[in-house]
């Protein structure tokens, strides 16, 4: 003898919930109970800078044209959600992103080139937004 059914409930608040299910026979003389855990989590967008590599060194020879350094990054969120925006900064200042692809889907990319990068150490940060929740990588 078997049966199946489905509980129907909404969880608006994030957090961890304990679901206890009890099956009972018609006489109430026998029952079994099982416990489950439900984690209501927020989507977690992740950003990965594919290019350049972390701590990559670029050499510029005096007297030659300034360096243009290409960059490419990917923002990916939890299945069922979408990336709504991507952006990037160099040393804290916004940089333009020539090509943005995939907005409105689970994964989006940003591609462009950093023009005339001066000598020194620089920090490139990439950002993605999913369900209003920002995430970043550097």
């Amino acid at each position, binding site marked *: *003898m*078997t*049966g*199946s*059914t*489905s*509980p*129907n*409930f909404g*969880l*608006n608040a*994030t957090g961890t*919930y*304990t*679901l*206890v*299910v*009890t*099956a*009972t*026979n*018609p*006489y109430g003389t*026998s*029952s*079994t109970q*099982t*416990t*489950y*855990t*439900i*984690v*209501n*989590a*927020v*989507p977690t967008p992740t950003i990965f800078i594919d290019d350049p590599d972390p701590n990559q060194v670029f050499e510029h020879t005096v007297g030659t044209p300034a360096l243009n350094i290409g960059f490419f990054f990917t923002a990916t969120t*939890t299945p*069922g*959600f979408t990336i709504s925006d991507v952006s990037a900064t160099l040393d804290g200042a916004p940089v333009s992103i020539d090509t943005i692809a995939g907005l409105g889907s689970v994964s989006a990319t940003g591609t462009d080139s950093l023009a005339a990068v001066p000598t020194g150490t620089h920090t490139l940060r990439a950002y993605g937004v999913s*369900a209003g929740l920002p995430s970043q990588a550097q």
Partner: protein
Amino acid sequence: MTISAPTPNQVFTIFPGVQSYTQFLFGTTSTFGGISSLTATLNGVPVVFTTSDSARWW
């Protein structure tokens, strides 16, 4: 009498705004009686089971 699915102590991860569906399977090896009810609580609060299969429970 057993609840065979989902696996006991299973952890479900869900996300706000995304519907998630889980089917509970339960049964008994008893020849008589069968199962009359399946109830649940969520953090101690009763949960409503929506089903059209109640007539098949036993």
